[in-house]
C-alpha cells in the first residue's frame, strides 16, 4: 500500500473541527472516573435532607435556601463540580501530554480553549441540573408531597438556571487557572472557591452588615432572585441593581474566557 502525499484536500470547517473536538472531549469526560465520583459526591446533600426531615420546607427553594444543607450544595458541591471540571479541562491535557497531539493539528490554541469551555459547561451544567432534579424528587419523597413536582415546575427551571449560571461563571474562572498554573492548580482553585465561603460572603458581608458585593456567589444569588426564581427567593445587594449583578456575571464569564484564550496563546508546553 502506498502513501499519497496530498496538499489540496479540503479541510473540515471550523465548526466541524470544533464539533469533532468537542465530541472527543465529551468522550474523555464520560470515560473519566472523576465524572462519576463527581455525580456521586454531588448527591451527598440528599443524606442530610433525609436525616433532618426538614418538615418546614414546602418546596425545593425553601429547602436549599434555608439551613446548612444549602451551604453544602451551594458552597461545597457546586464549586467542587466547577473546580474539577474547569481546572482539568486543560490541566489534564497538560499533565497527560495529550496537549501535544492537539497542538500538532491544524487547530488554533484559542479554538482548543473555546471548545474545552463549551464541553466543560455542557458537562457541568448537566451534572448540576441532574443533581437539582434528584434533590427535587428526593424532597418530594421526604415531605411526601409530589405536587411540588407538577405544580411548581418554575422552581425546577429557575433552579436549573441558577446552577447553570453558577457553573458557567465558576468553571470559566477555573479554566483559566488550569491553563496558567502548572503546579497545584487544584489547591489554588480550592483557595479561590472557598474565598467565596469565608471572605467574599461572610467577612465582607459581616463588616457591612449586608450581602457583600465582593462575593461572586452573591451576584449569582441576586440575579437568581430577580430573574430566575422571582416568586420564591428574596435576596438583595445594597446599592446595586440586579442588572448590575447580571452584567458582572457576564463580564466575569467573557472576561475570564478571553483571558484564558490570551493565556494559552502565550503559554509554553514543554
Amino acid at each position, binding site marked *: *500500500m*502506498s*502513501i*499519497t*502525499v*496530498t*496538499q489540496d*484536500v*479540503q*479541510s*473540515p470547517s471550523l465548526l466541524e*473541527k470544533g464539533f*469533532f*473536538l468537542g465530541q*472527543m472531549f465529551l*468522550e*474523555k469526560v464520560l*470515560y473519566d472516573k472523576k465524572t462519576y465520583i463527581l455525580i456521586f459526591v454531588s448527591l451527598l446533600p440528599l443524606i442530610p435532607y433525609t436525616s433532618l426531615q426538614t418538615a418546614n420546607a414546602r418546596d425545593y427553594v425553601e429547602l436549599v435556601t434555608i439551613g446548612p444543607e444549602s451551604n453544602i450544595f451551594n458552597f461545597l458541591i457546586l464549586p467542587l463540580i466547577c473546580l474539577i471540571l474547569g481546572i482539568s479541562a486543560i490541566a489534564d491535557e497538560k499533565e*497527560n*501530554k*495529550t*496537549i*501535544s*497531539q492537539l*497542538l*500538532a*493539528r*491544524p*487547530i*488554533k*490554541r484559542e*479554538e482548543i480553549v473555546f471548545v474545552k469551555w463549551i464541553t466543560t459547561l455542557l458537562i457541568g451544567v448537566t451534572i448540576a441540573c441532574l443533581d437539582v432534579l434528584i434533590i427535587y424528587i428526593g424532597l418530594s419523597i421526604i415531605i411526601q408531597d409530589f405536587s411540588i413536582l407538577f405544580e411548581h415546575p418554575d422552581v425546577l427551571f429557575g433552579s436549573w438556571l441558577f446552577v447553570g449560571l453558577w457553573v458557567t461563571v465558576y468553571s470559566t474562572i477555573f479554566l483559566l487557572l488550569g491553563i496558567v498554573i502548572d503546579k497545584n492548580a487544584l489547591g489554588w482553585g480550592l483557595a479561590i472557591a472557598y474565598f467565596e465561603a469565608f471572605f467574599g460572603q461572610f467577612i465582607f458581608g459581616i463588616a457591612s452588615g449586608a450581602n457583600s458585593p465582593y462575593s461572586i456567589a452573591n451576584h449569582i444569588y441576586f440575579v437568581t432572585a430577580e430573574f430566575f426564581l422571582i416568586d420564591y427567593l428574596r435576596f438583595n445587594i445594597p446599592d446595586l441593581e440586579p442588572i448590575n449583578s447580571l452584567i458582572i456575571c457576564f463580564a466575569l464569564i467573557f472576561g475570564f474566557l478571553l483571558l484564558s484564550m490570551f493565556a494559552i*496563546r502565550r503559554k*509554553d*508546553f*514543554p
Partner: protein
Amino acid sequence: MIELQEVSKSFGDVVALSRLTMSATDGQVTGFLGPNGAGKSTTLKLIMGEIRPDIGDVSVFDEDPFNNALLKKRIGYVSEHDDLYPWMKGKQFVRSLARLVLPREQAETAAKEALSKVGLGVKGKRIGAYSKGMKQRLKVAAGIAHHPDLLILDEPFGGLDPLGRREMKQLVSELNQQGVTVLISSHILYELDEMSTRMVLIHRGQALAEGPPTEILNLIDQFPHQILFQAPPTELHTLSKLLIEEDIVKSITFNKEKEREDLVVITETPTTFYPVATRIIAENGLLIKHLESQTDNIEAIFDYLT
C-alpha cells in the same frame, strides 16, 4: 524547510538550548542525534510551535510555527511521550485526529491506511491496554495519517523490538522516497546512521556538527574507542604484540582478574582497527573468547567532541 537561527531557550534556571543553529533540508531524512538531555525534544517542540524561543528565529516552510494552524496541516509529529487517549481504540484515535485535518470519508480511509502501514490492525482493544511498542506504532500512524509533507519523529524507536525498529526504518525510508521530509531524533547512533541522508549532532543545547552521515561518522570515529578482549593469557599476549606491530593502537592494558586476564585496547582509528584485528585473529588462529566495544556511551563521545 526547517531553519533555526541562534535559538536559545531556558526553563527557569535550566538552559535547554543555547544559540542553536540548525536546518533540515527539503526531501532529506535528517537524523538528529544527541545524548539524553541534549535539547533534542526542546528543539522539536520549538519546530512544532509548542514553545517559543527566548531568542532567535524558528521557521518551518518559511513560516513561524507558533500557533500556526495552517502550517500544521503539512506536518506530522510523533512525540516521545505517551500522549494517547487511553479510552479510545487505535483506529478511533487515528481517525479522530485525522478528522481534524481531513473530511470524514478521507479521514476514515487515511486512518486504515496509516494503521496498515505501521502494522496495526483496525480492530482491537482500548489504547490503555496496548503494549509500549503498539503505542509507539499508533503514534506514528496518527502522525502520518493526514499525509504530511514534513514528518517529525522524536525518539520513535523507544519500546520497539528489533523487528519493529527495522519496519520503522523501512517506513521512514519509504515515506522519504515518496517525497516526505523527515526529521528524526535519537540518542542512539546506529538507529539513525543507516537511514539518514543528513545528520545534526546536538549536545548541551548546541549543534556540534551538521552534514552527511559519512562525515559525521568520521567525526565520531575520531573518538578513542576502547575494546575489551578475553582469551587465554598466551593468546592475549600474541594478539597485543601483533596489534602493536600494525600501529593501530594508542594504548594496551592487561587487567589480571583471579582466574583470567583481560586485554583492553584503546584505538583512535576504529574503522581500521576492527578489520585488522579480525584479520590478525583469523590468520593466527587465536582463541578469542569475548570481544566487546566498551565505547557505547554517546555522552562520552559528545564530551570528547566538545
